[in-house]
């Protein structure tokens, strides 16, 4: 396969980086770009006009008279501002959860008063039935902690099933298709940009968590970690300063894939009309307008191309990083 020669791969990497760079640049500069029309201003004299037919509408207008080019530019901004933070937040959340699960497993223990304190505050914060009961339990926990502290007695402790909780939660989230989960949650709560960001983050952390956990299981048995523990450094410090940085390696490869997945998910939600508000420009929403005007191919083809090229570029970037990692000693 001549197409898969190293030279072609190198060029495809550069093209991918170039495209993604352009998308990020356009997203950052969208408000100051000299676009002929704002994205939400309908040009009522030019409804569903093909490209280059109306003055200033270089890529045509959608069935509501909005400029397709402007929607593409501001759609890129929405995509970047939504998917990149969501992917990073999911990676951070997944790294912390997976790293902790991999490092401590189910073995670490917590003193009973802290269990009561945490459980009570959680009960109250989640406003479970009789929230006051949560506060009472938390107060009992606090009282016990103070009492034991004054008497300098050793607390009784219970194990924390950290690994089981993290793996269980990740498995539970993975068993429900992500689109179904997000649609159900969005339908129940309604969606704003911050809400969608939280939704995407909460449904995307299991993959980074699994990757980091698996890596952590290997890292925690390496000599330098054992040496640090033998030197008397606290487990938290060993975890944070020595083990975790080495366990994050897989995220370099998975982050672009995560962004690609989120980009596709956001577009799907917007296409279905359950994503962002109608006045937020989105590639998926622009594609959905084809349903109102099936002959307006330009309202579908241009955003679809942007989406396809972006996802291919992110996949290509991910493959490149995976290849780089294989070359590492």
């Amino acid at each position, binding site marked *: 396969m001549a197409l898969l020669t190293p030279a072609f791969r190198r060029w495809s990497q550069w093209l991918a980086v170039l495209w993604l760079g352009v998308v990020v640049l356009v997203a950052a500069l969208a408000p100051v770009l000299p676009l002929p029309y*704002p994205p*939400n*201003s*309908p040009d*009522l*004299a030019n*409804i*569903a006009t093909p490209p280059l037919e109306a003055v200033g509408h270089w890529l045509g207008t959608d*069935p*509501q*008279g*909005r400029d397709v080019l402007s929607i593409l530019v501001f759609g890129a901004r929405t995509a970047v501002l939504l998917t990149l933070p969501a992917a990073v937040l999911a990676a951070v959340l997944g790294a912390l959860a997976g790293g902790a699960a991999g490092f401590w497993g189910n073995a670490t223990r917590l003193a009973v008063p802290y269990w009561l304190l945490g459980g009570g505050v959680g009960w109250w914060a989640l406003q479970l039935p009789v929230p006051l009961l949560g506060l009472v339990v938390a107060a009992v926990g606090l009282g016990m902690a103070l009492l034991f502290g004054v008497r300098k007695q050793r607390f009784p402790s219970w194990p924390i099933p950290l690994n089981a909780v993290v793996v269980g939660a990740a498995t539970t989230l993975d068993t429900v298709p992500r689109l179904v989960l997000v649609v159900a949650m969005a339908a129940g709560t309604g969606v704003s940009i911050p809400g969608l960001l939280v939704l995407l983050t909460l449904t995307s952390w299991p993959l980074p968590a699994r990757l980091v956990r698996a890596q952590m299981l290997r890292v925690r048995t390496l000599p330098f970690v054992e040496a640090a523990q033998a030197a008397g450094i606290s487990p938290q410090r060993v975890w944070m300063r020595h083990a975790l940085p080495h366990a994050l390696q897989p995220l370099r490869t998975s982050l672009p894939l995560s962004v690609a997945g989120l980009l596709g998910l956001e577009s799907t939600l917007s296409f279905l*009309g359950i994503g962002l*508000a*109608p*006045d937020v420009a989105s590639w998926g929403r622009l594609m959905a307008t084809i*349903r*109102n*005007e*099936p*002959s307006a191919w330009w309202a579908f083809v241009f955003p679809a191309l942007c989406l396809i090229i972006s996802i291919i570029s992110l996949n290509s970037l991910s493959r490149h990083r995976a290849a780089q990692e294989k070359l590492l000693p």
Partner: protein
Amino acid sequence: MTQHSLRKLLCITIAGLLYSCSPQRADTDVIRVRWSHDPETLDPFQFSNQASLDAVNLLHLGLLEVDLTRLKYAPVLAESLPTTHLIGDSLTELRYTLRAAAAWDNGCPVLASDVAFTLKLMFCPDLPNEAARARFGFIEDITTTATAPRRFTLVCRGQSLEYLVASGDFPILSEAAIDPRGQLRRYSLRALQRRPVTAPADTVLLDVARRYRAASPDQLPGLLPGCGPYELVAWERDRYLTLRRKTNWWPDAQLQPVPAVLQALPKQLEYVIIPDAATATLALRRGDLDVYPQMPAREYARLQTSPSTSNPLRLYSSLSYSVVMAGFNTRQPVLADALTRQALSHCFDAAGLLEATQMGAGTRTVGILSPANRINYNDSLALIPFDLKRAAALLRQAGWQRGPEADAGWVRAVANRPRQQLALRVRYRAEETLFATVALQFQAAAAKIGVPVTLLPTESGTFSSSVHTGDFDVYVRMLNGNPFMFNFTPIFHSEAIGAGNTTGFDTPASDHLIEAITTAETEQRRAHLLRRFQALMQREMPVVPLFFLPNRVAASSSLTGLQVSSLKPGYAVKTLVRAPQPSPAP
């Protein structure tokens, strides 16, 4: 398994697949009609959305009904139009006689006692009958006689031209089905009407209301049988609603010839819920639909330029009395004053919207009366121009001040109240592209003068409840009218706040004018009052009427008897017949 039997199995599978993929032959007895959304309810007392009205009109009959093709009221359960007798200068008596043939499905005749029961039910407490109360509150009493059980007299407050037809336009319910012991008979209609809201609970009335609700007329009208030509067979929400023609409907055997308004030719009507316009057009082209009423302009134009080959279509167009309008929630402090509402009305580009969404067809208007109604339309009023400078000037006049920054909003100081910030939420039905375009245009225009607008596309059922509970600042919707009745009580009178008066608008002057219109004695007087009413509404601006829509209907050419009307639903469904298909040549 042998190779021979395997081949046989493969052939059967392929044949089965081909059969299941081939288009189904249309059932000649079924007429399929597109609805964009489900009826909100089938309760005959809740005049909610058009789909509800369509279904209720097929399940129940009134005393009178509009003959859609002649645009005139015709007697249905009544033998003829009522005779009118003016009593003094403040009362009108309308004398009705029911058709001798009119009967319920069990063969029992429809009697004056059923009419009295229906009217009393409209004023029975603890029932969702607010809309009916506002609409038929002018009927003060009903008198019946034991010796002539089909005759009755309606006593109406005031004297009005409209009483002749308005008094008979409500579905009649069976007393035997809900109140077999005749418990409501001991109450007069007048007593029920005058019963204060704060009156102590009456066990008899509560019992009747409980039995009515138990019949679930909103969901299962089978428990509340009507004397209409159809019965509900199935209702799958978001999918379809099927009605079947009764085999024992009373006019079939009793009336010869059957009057036009009592004809019901389709043996089965299937209303298919297809929210998306393009999908509905595709279904029509494929022959999965027979009638597509209220077709959007672009879909209609597309069918005109590229006719369907698999299902030849006929396209019809006429005037309509449906006006697209925006409504302001006058209960919101920022929208309580007329000047602010006037200012915002200049942010709607009605001419541009008409051109963009209706391809120029349709008519701009100064009010909610159609310009086609030449006698009553106030042509001395000017159309509201799209003028953002004027909008900003009027906002300043209304006391609003804008900060010096370009993106600063408008604020207003009000004595003894928190400072007001002008920011609006616009609610509209999510699946309607027309409303979405209006909202988007308003948002863009308002943004230019610094008024932030949030768009709230809302699912159909939620939209109705949100509008009724006042959970909006501005809404965009359609209002259906007609050329012969001008009773604005259910939508603009203070009595209807919380029911049909969704804008919450009420002033003593408007209430007085609405009452005067409903009781106008001559056409000239009514026209004069209607013109004043339009002027008042333009001054007060609780709603911004944008334009009247044309009525566009596309139907399969295999149907005959399709009569298009300018009244909703835009065509007469009961006269539709599928022409016999030519049998294949031997």
